[in-house]
């Protein structure tokens, strides 16, 4: 299959979240891991002199770049080419996948090693390469685990966050053909042994890009496992895939973003590896002879011109996922597509037109923990509300009429009072317009209804009983 994977439409969002919510082990794994990441982040930011100042600075940088994105991208592309790299502009997911496949084919590649790239998930790259006869091996440990398990990542930076160590040991044992202990050291050693060989055999290395620096054409990758560096230095060809918004103009701007990203993602002041790649290897250097940069639009230009442009300020740290009380109970797969959590609930309906994608902004209680967690201050809850408005405007007449009927009843004090008195306490308790059916059952399946308190507050007041 080439092109992007469609959003998982069946079962529905409710069924997917219900299924995930019923998995106690999944929920325990998520709460534990996201809690750890959240508290590490809090500690890392707490250690800064002026975390809010840094956040404001980063937000200003992102906005400045987005305001003149085409220009910044042109500058980046010019500098990458000046440094000896090749730039491919991809309007669609399929264009991007085709560009990577074409590079692989031109080298007769049989094996590609990849470091983590959510953009590659977005364009369905692994499937496209495999369709073209290229074996793809994920080399980020978490990403490799989900690949071996034939799953998809459930988190932007921690792909296997939904699995605990025993589950991982079981999966890797099937690869090993022998039982492996659920000991992180042993499992990592096994993975290292398996992956090292593949780095040496690979014909092509594929990476994402955390930031492109326009001033020098430098591609920046942060990682903790060293796989990113091997992917970008051992095979003779390096293809970097970058969402078009992932750029800064200057190194000074990069410095701010690099201070934020690891702190927000994992609570680290800096990751173990920060790779700065400017062009292919020189004649006297070791490294890839060819560097290709694929710049992915795939709907981003449309977002840029819309009321949802702030979503493009995202630096993919995953902090909003860790903070989100919905994500923490249902995990990433319940969102049905590549990007989960609050940022996924915003990006997915913007990048995918399917009806199912448009449901995702409902996967939020609008608690704004995402906004609080976001290192660049994206008001995700406002964007979710905006997307709900967009859906409502395009929704069928049924819902609109029901809301209109409710609003007519509740816009006159007399009819509002009459409706409160007429409604059973159960209807009132559901906190929902009585004209929207089915809500009571959905409430009472897991929760008791409040006991009746008798007259309404206004009746008590009018009776002089207060």
């Amino acid at each position, binding site marked *: 299959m080439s092109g992007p994977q469609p959003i998982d439409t069946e079962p529905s969002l409710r069924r997917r*979240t219900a299924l995930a919510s019923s998995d106690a082990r999944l929920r325990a794994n998520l709460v534990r891991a996201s809690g750890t990441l959240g508290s590490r982040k809090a500690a890392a930011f707490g250690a800064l002199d002026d975390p809010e100042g840094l956040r404001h600075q980063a937000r200003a940088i992102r906005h400045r770049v987005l305001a003149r994105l085409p220009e910044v991208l042109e500058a980046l592309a010019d500098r990458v080419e000046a440094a000896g790299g090749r730039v491919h502009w991809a309007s669609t997911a399929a264009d991007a996948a085709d560009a990577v496949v074409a590079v692989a084919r031109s080298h007769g590649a049989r094996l590609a090693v990849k470091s983590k790239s959510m953009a590659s998930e977005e364009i369905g790259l692994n499937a496209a390469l495999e369709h073209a006869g290229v074996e793809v091996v994920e080399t980020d440990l978490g990403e490799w685990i989900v690949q071996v398990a034939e799953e998809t990542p459930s988190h932007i930076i921690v792909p296997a966050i939904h699995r605990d160590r025993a589950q991982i040991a079981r999966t890797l044992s099937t690869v090993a053909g022998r039982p492996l202990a659920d000991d992180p050291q042993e499992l990592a050693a096994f993975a290292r042994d398996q992956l090292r060989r593949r780095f040496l055999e690979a014909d092509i290395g594929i990476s994402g890009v955390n930031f492109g620096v326009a001033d020098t054409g430098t591609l920046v990758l942060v990682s903790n496992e060293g796989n990113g560096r091997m992917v970008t230095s051992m095979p003779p060809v390096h293809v970097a895939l970058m969402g078009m918004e992932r750029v800064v103009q200057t190194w000074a701007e990069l410095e701010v973003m690099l201070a934020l990203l690891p702190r927000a993602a994992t609570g680290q002041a800096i990751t173990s590896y920060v790779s700065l790649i400017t062009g292919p290897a020189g004649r006297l250097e070791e490294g890839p002879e060819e560097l290709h940069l694929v710049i992915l639009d795939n709907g981003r230009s449309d977002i840029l011109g819309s009321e949802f442009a702030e979503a493009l300020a995202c630096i993919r740290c995953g902090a909003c996922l860790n903070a989100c009380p919905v994500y923490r109970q249902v995990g990433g797969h319940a969102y049905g597509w590549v990007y989960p959590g609050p940022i996924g609930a915003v990006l997915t309906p913007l990048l995918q037109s399917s009806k199912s994608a448009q449901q995702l902004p409902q996967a939020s209680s609008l608690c704004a*923990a995402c906004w609080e967690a976001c290192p660049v201050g994206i008001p995700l809850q406002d964007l979710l*509300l905006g997307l709900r408005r967009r859906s*409502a405007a395009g929704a069928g007449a049924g819902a609109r009429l029901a809301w209109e009927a*409710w*609003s007519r009843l*509740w816009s006159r004090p007399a009819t509002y009072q009459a409706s409160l008195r007429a409604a059973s306490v159960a209807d009132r308790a559901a906190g*929902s317009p009585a004209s929207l059916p089915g809500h009571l059952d959905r*409430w009472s399946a897991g929760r008791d209804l409040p006991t009746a308190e008798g007259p309404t507050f206004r009746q008590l007041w009018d009776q002089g009983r207060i």
Partner: protein
Amino acid sequence: MTGTAVLFPTCVVDGVRPQVGVATVRLLRARGFRVELARSTTCCGQPAWNAGQVDAAARVARTTLAGLEEAGGDVVVVPAGSCATMIRRFWPELFRLAGEPGAAERAEALGQRVRELSELLAGLPAGLPAAGAAPGQADRGPGQAASAGPVVYHRSCHMLRELGIAEAPEQVLDGAGVERVANPTAGTCCGFGGLFAVKLPEASVAMADHVLDGCVASGAATVVGCDASCLLQLEGRARRRRLPLAFRHLAEVLAPE
């Protein structure tokens, strides 16, 4: 600060938890306010706003805006963080989106006088002792059986993050001598979220369970909050699980008998 406090009871208190309104009135009177009811109000429109239904939300909010303006008063008191948020944070945007810039300006002006209950109380001189006075009896409110043990405060999200009211409720409880324990899941959403609770009920219940497990672990006997809606969510789930927890609005804990 004293004077006339206009009470916006909110639809949830009006229809489902009138005793929260009663307690709010008693509490405000005990703190020296003359209390008036904003009679011509209905709902803040938040259910429709959160559903993306701007016209329906504006239609309802318009009524309540006019009702609150008409009621006057020195301060408008809302015993619900979420409804106070709707008025102060979202009404101006709502009316602008509905093509009513005049109403948006009126909402901004009104918003200056709108206070969530604990926010108002925290700005006042130390209050009267809580109902029952002695620690351990602090949760004895109107019409409720006494239950021994400390309270744990649940921070509701809108008021915490959109209005930035974080410490005020705890300060007010502590100032009144209510025995209180720390909440291990402070700041985590209860899973209500208005229609979210019925759109994705299983996720909503899982979220409630996470918060409730924290409340049980805290050792508290009573969960106190500033939003009746969040409390309905937590209480509904706790009852289904037969958890030994009582649920009280801040006003019910603090109001004199």
